[in-house]
């Protein structure tokens, strides 16, 4: 079931200089987000992902196109209705954006106060949320007394206060160290799994997408350039920008300088086999090579596990008599696609 739908959404901002062209932040973007999913939008800064996020809770309104939440076009809502809508969509931020003048409990209570909940309900809910994010002992602390990871957990508790169906995460881990990032990502996975909250996360880190999302949308210059399951996009990125993001976390098939360096160290014939979720068997490849009189060495590559599905590539250096090596490769490639073959250097 689609919970969030953007149809042909364009958002342009007035020119920053007089007489200049308006800045098109989001350019004809269409996007469906299924209820209960974790969708990641990745892009470099200025790609428009941040604006897309703010279109969902109407902090920005589109120049054209429609934004639907649960089948309702929110671009037609009045300010009062929008405030009610925002109350039902949680949002967390890179810089946490906690209220410094309020305690942890006061921060979490804020959306509930806005919603006009009775005091007793608020304090019960705050206690429950503090326990959920593991900060039960910090209720009376002030944000400045917390670490970055704790601040983000307060941010998450505040965003969840009104029991929203949607959580928007704006670079929520980009200001955190790797360990804290893992903690926060684990908490977000729990939010999704235990509370059934649909999460839309924007990031410039492919690692966040890999460990959190089930679907990834790649944006560049305001447009969606690639959209698919995290496994599909990571294992077979199509667009050059997507490949750059994927290369940041996954060893690519060696090329260029990398390949030159490998060639310099390994005198044999260099071949790369692609393995992708059952499409290719590592064991058969090795068995085929071993049954020929060739020596082979694994010199590059690796296996990646995305939600239980594996893919990767193995770059081997084969040495032996040329004809035998050739026959070994022919035998092996019946078991796994050979995506790049280098002739003897």
């Amino acid at each position, binding site marked *: 079931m689609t919970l969030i739908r953007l149809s042909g959404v364009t958002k342009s901002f007035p020119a920053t200089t007089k007489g200049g062209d308006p800045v098109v932040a989001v350019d004809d973007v269409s996007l469906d987000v299924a209820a209960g999913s974790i969708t990641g939008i990745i892009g470099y800064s200025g790609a428009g992902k941040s604006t897309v996020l703010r279109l969902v809770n109407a902090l920005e309104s589109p120049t054209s196109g429609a934004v639907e939440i649960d089948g309702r076009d929110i671009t037609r809502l009045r300010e009062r209705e929008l405030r009610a809508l*925002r*109350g039902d*969509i949680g949002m967390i931020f890179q*810089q946490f*954006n*906690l*209220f*410094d*003048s309020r305690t942890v409990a006061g921060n979490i209570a804020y959306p509930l106060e806005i919603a006009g909940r009775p005091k007793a309900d608020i304090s019960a809910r705050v206690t429950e949320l503090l326990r959920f994010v593991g900060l039960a002992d910090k209720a009376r602390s002030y944000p400045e007394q917390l670490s970055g990871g704790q601040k983000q957990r307060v941010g998450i508790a*505040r965003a969840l206060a009104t029991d929203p169906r949607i959580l928007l995460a704006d670079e929520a881990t980009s200001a955190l160290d790797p360990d804290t990032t893992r903690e926060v990502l684990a908490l977000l996975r729990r939010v999704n799994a235990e509370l059934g909250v649909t999460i839309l996360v924007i990031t410039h880190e492919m690692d966040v997408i890999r460990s959190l999302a089930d679907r990834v949308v790649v944006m560049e210059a305001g447009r969606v350039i690639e959209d698919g399951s995290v496994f599909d996009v990571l294992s077979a990125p199509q667009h050059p920008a997507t490949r750059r993001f994927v290369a940041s976390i996954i060893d690519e098939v060696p090329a260029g300088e990398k390949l030159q360096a490998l060639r310099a160290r390994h005198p044999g014939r260099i071949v790369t086999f692609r393995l992708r979720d059952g499409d290719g068997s590592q064991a058969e490849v090795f068995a085929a090579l071993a049954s020929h009189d060739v020596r082979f060495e694994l010199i590059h590559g690796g296996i990646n596990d995305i939600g239980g599905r594996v893919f990767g590539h193995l770059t081997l250096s084969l040495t032996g008599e040329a004809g035998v090596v050739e026959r070994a490769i022919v035998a092996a490639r019946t078991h796994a696609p050979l995506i790049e073959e280098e002739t003897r250097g």
Partner: protein
Amino acid sequence: MDRLVDLLPELLDATYETLYIVTFSLILGGLLGLLLGTLLYATRPGSLFPNRPVFAVLNVIVNFFRPIPFVILLAAVQPLARGIGIPGIGANFGVFAITIASLFAISRIVEQNLLTVRPGIIEAARAAGASRARILFRLIPREALGPLVLGYTFIVVALVDMTAIAGAVAAGGLGEFAIVYGFKQFNPWVTWAAVLVIIVIVQLVQFLGNGLARRILRR
């Protein structure tokens, strides 16, 4: 020295007058400045209620009045004071003139301190469903309270200073006391007595303001 002892009742009266002028001009100028500063903050481009014409007009008004030297403003507003039934000398004239002079400075200080609230805080409140008015009148003043208290402390000290200058045109207070009994009668003891009282007032205000701000900021 003996002369100073004789003048003690006058010194007390002058102190009282100074406190009177400072208190009432702080209340009037402080509130009007708060209002004007909040308006400047709220209407500036990109703020909660952006309104270019209103912001531009307010900005010009503040920039017009703020640089006028206080001594000159003091003389300039005398007819205005008489026009609304306030005598051109005395403590109430002091309150009137200082309120006008300080409200523009206060509005800038208020505006600047409200601007210290990070835009992200406002965005978080908006994302939580808070109305712009609620953010402007409840959240932002609370978030900026620490710097605001320090700003107002600074202003009180400036008001004491203005009161002394107003004394020069017979608005009463310690400034007038120092000039009439000290400076004009060549009696440094009397002048310094007034200075000492002013220093005590300033120190006290600064101490209270710092303490209060520390409590708000550090908790």
